């Protein structure tokens, strides 16, 4: 039988994987993908809680749809920035982008 904690474990593993990707990757595209991973981990949690805990199961699903929507916008925006950055500097290695410092 699949219980709530299984879903939560999956969400936590996904989130941690995404977090690791954000912190450890130098490639901007991979960082963006890791952010998507973290957002989807949250989606898993939302739907799991809605199904197992809440009285209204659609509430979590509506939230998940919102998050997917925002993730799409964020990915579009992020990829556009990465594209421009690549055009300007010829690289998407995040270590190279450190102009905003003292």
């Amino acid at each position, binding site marked *: 039988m699949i219980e709530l904690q299984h879903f939560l474990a999956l969400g936590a593993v996904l989130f941690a994987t995404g977090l690791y990707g954000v912190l450890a990757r130098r490639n901007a595209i991979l960082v963006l993908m890791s952010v998507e991973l973290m957002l989807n981990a949250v989606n898993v949690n939302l739907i799991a809680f809605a199904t197992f805990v809440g009285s209204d199961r659609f509430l979590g699903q509506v939230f998940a749809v919102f998050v997917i929507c925002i993730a799409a916008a964020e990915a579009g925006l992020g990829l556009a920035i990465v594209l421009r950055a690549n055009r300007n500097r010829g690289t998407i290695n995040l270590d190279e982008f450190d102009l*905003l*410092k003292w």
Partner: protein
Amino acid sequence: MESAWLLALLPLAAFLLLVLGGRRLPGGGWYLAVGAIGAAFLLWWPVMGDLLARGPGAFSFSWLALPPLQATGFAFPGFELRFGLVVDPLAALMLGIVTLVALLVQIYSLGYMRGDRRFGWYFAAHSLFAAAMLALVLADNYLLLYFAWELVGLCSYLLIGFWYERRSAAEAAKKAFITTRVGDVGLLIGILLLWRATGTFEISAIGHAAESGTLDPGLLTLGALLVFAGAIGKSAQFPLHVWLPDAMEGPTPVSALIHAATMVAAGVYLVARSFTLFVHAPGALAVVTAVGLFTALLAGTLALVNNDIKRVLAYSTVSQLGFMMLALGSLGLTAAMFHLYTHAFAKALLFLAAGSVIHGLGTQDIWRMGGLLRRMPLTGVTFTIGALALAGFPLLSGFFSKDEILKVVAEHQNPAVLALTALGALVSALYMGRVTWVVFFGRPRDHELHPHESPFVMTVPLLILATLTVVAGYVALDPVGQSLGLHGGFGEFLYHEHPEPFSLNGGLVVLSLALAAAGLGGTWLAYVQGGISPSSVAARFGVLYRWAAAKYYVDELYQAIIDRVVLVLAGGVAWFDRHVVNDAGVDGTGRATVWAGFVLKFQQTGKFYNYAIAMIVGIVVLSVLAGALKGP
């Protein structure tokens, strides 16, 4: 009664017009100033007639009113400040003196100040001076009186320092302003004390409170003394007398105005206006007596040894003001105001005549003058009349008022005070005799000077003032007063509680005549006839003479106090301000900010993962904190 405001407003309007547009008017617009003060003098007559017909009147309006407020834990009872004017015999007398003397002085100034670069400004400041003094006289409450009081001080500063290109004039103006300010602070504290105790600024209301005994006697004495401190400053009483002789740096007509009507009379007027307070505070009254008597003697001896014609007159004013204070201290409101009134004409006359001498000779040193009566007959005769009046020459105005003062002193003080007063009267006869005989009689001393009589515009005011000096005293007599429309003599017009009809006390008349004769005759022998050698008299008084010639070292004492105490304290405060407030406080804050910014800027690496880690660590820490604070 309401039209009495116009008396003060007309010169004020003239001042504003002159300041705003004086440069564009031909002649600097002097006719505006003279016209305004002349109109004020003409307006004085209906005001006076009104007073005699209907009795004292008052008129006031709300100047500032705060409605009562009620809120939780806070109740404000409301506050109203009324400004008003009061026209009683005291105010009416002063109004007449101020407008008349100011008018004559301004007419005289047309000749004396002709061709001055700031001719228009002179008349503007003159107008403001008169307006301030008239407002001071009309004020029915201490707050308005204080405003006018400070305005008078400001105008004296402006006019004493009129020739500010001369360093000594600028210094004298500063000295006058700062010295009187010492007394003004006392006056302000006194007014506020009385206001706290009674809840009103109105002079009559505070007087009633003093009369009914609702005021604490200690507080009343303190308040009266502080009010008197203001009078000490303005009326140049000891120990704040030092500014008046230096004020001679101003144009001579200004000295006449300051000494006769506007500035120094304000102190005596203040005590007279607050007389109820003093009457019910015997301690304060004793101080007034002591200060007045001491000042009269001190300044008299100073006048006796000074060699500058204007300074002799200045010290003579100080000593005469001392007599007025002495009279006030002896409960002689009538005598004091009568003396103020006769002295105003005599002293304005003396100063204007001295100005005429200076105008003709270009020097103020009496030892370069001599025999001027023949060269400047009008000036000489009028000056002599003024001097004789102040010396107490019989049947001139000063004789009557000095006699009144001797009378109240004899009635209310012990014989020792009377003896000292008589000594003061002798000294005033001596110094007036000395300066008159030396300047106008005998032989010319300096043949390089070519004196000439002054123009009519200057001599006509002299003649008018000389006439007034001769006749003013007779107002004390009942028939004269009645023919002028008063109920009787001067004493039945202006008095505190009970009319004081004029009467001569035979013994005192003989005494005062003897004193005047001794003073005038002795100096005649010494300086004209040559029977007594002044230097041998000076030698006999040795130490006293040297001290008096050095002005009793009062100026030196003040200089030492300023150097050793005030400047040292000020240096300490300045050090604190520079090093603690400025360097550590203001600059320190700036420097600390710059340093903190320098240190903290290295946090900004610009690397993406630094920010990401900071963000994540921050979220984790905040979550843990939130959980810990919320508890299980």
